[in-house]
């Protein structure tokens, strides 16, 4: 075991967060899916390392029998092993083949897919307000920023998906998910290489997403609605960072006002983001559920 893998107050609580899946279901939550926002398995997303994820989150998702929506992170693309033949997430200079092997067809399946771990799923087809979830392969862009550039494959897939009524019906609630948060007042700060992907989400009218979910910074943080350049804007898009899934949190609980644009942050507790979806009223309800079961920062979003 690596020295860094010991369970401490601020590290390695992935078993505790995985237990929330069963806890929430037992409490009456009607779970339909789990979005994995990247860096699912440290340090490098290798085949052998995935045993740790599998024993905790993998089992919890299997027991709950819900959809798995995995996103790549930068650590998935840090796999140093040679890419096996046939791996679809092999870009030559980097690959995420451990991720691909573990999650199988999940990152290549949905109402749309680019064959490179960007894809969309639609929940509740036929409901008044179905839920469209679009997952983007932004994990590769740290080493390959061109993939996330304006007109690049990730932004192009996003725009097409948002405009396709079979992927993103006009009455849907729409959630985007990828790893590296474009806007953060914490560890990684604003990330310019993701900016074009964020801006691509600002398509006209009701096709615009209602919520963007990210990870990368190891905390829970909610931004207010932000415009194309990350400025607070009432008609913007809410960004939530759900990066406290187990590996570590950035520090001990901090009760003061969060910095910068951040509307709310929990820097010291592990947990998951619960996204409630009301298919009748067309609403989303978000909250950070801590490892101990506290639901903090409850918010409601009326879908466009």
């Amino acid at each position, binding site marked *: 075991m690596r020295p860094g893998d010991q369970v401490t107050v601020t590290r390695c609580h992935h078993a505790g967060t995985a237990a929330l899946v069963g806890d929430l279901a037992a409490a009456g939550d009607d779970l339909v899916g789990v979005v994995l926002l990247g860096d699912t398995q*440290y340090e490098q997303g290798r085949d052998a390392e995935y045993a740790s994820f599998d024993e905790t989150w993998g089992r919890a998702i299997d027991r709950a029998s819900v959809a798995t929506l995995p996103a790549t992170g930068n650590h998935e693309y840090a796999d140093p092993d040679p890419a096996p033949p046939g791996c679809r997430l092999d870009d030559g200079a980097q690959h995420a083949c451990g991720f691909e092997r573990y999650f199988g067809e999940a990152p290549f399946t949905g109402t749309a897919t680019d064959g490179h771990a960007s894809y969309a*799923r639609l929940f509740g*087809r036929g409901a008044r307000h179905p839920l469209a979830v679009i997952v983007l392969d932004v994990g590769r862009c740290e080493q390959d920023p061109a993939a996330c550039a304006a007109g690049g494959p990730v932004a192009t897939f996003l725009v097409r998906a948002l405009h396709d009524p079979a992927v993103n019906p006009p009455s849907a609630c729409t959630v985007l998910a990828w790893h590296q948060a474009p806007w953060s007042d914490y560890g990684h700060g604003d990330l310019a290489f993701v900016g074009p992907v964020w801006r691509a989400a600002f398509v006209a009218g009701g096709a615009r997403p209602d919520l963007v979910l990210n990870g990368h910074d190891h905390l829970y943080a909610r931004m207010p609605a932000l415009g194309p350049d990350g400025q607070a804007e009432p008609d913007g898009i809410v960004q939530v960072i759900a990066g406290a899934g187990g590996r570590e949190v950035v520090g001990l609980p901090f009760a003061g006002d969060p910095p910068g644009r951040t509307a709310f942050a929990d820097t010291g507790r592990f947990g998951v983001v619960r996204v409630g979806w009301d298919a009748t009223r067309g609403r989303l309800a978000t909250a950070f559920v801590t490892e101990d079961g506290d639901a903090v920062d409850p918010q409601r979003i009326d879908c466009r």
Partner: protein
Amino acid sequence: MRRAAAVLTLVALAAACDPAATPSVPEPLPTHEPGGGGTGERVLLAVGDIACARAIRSR
């Protein structure tokens, strides 16, 4: 029934062998009554930055 099953099998095989076929698998609406006090709310969980290499915390 047997003929219908054979037709279905052929359709499935044709789809599986078509390299141009685009996967399209909408998630079905749950068929059971939703929980959460009968509000009709369904729940998606989101989580990132998850598993250390091989360290399990018991609860």
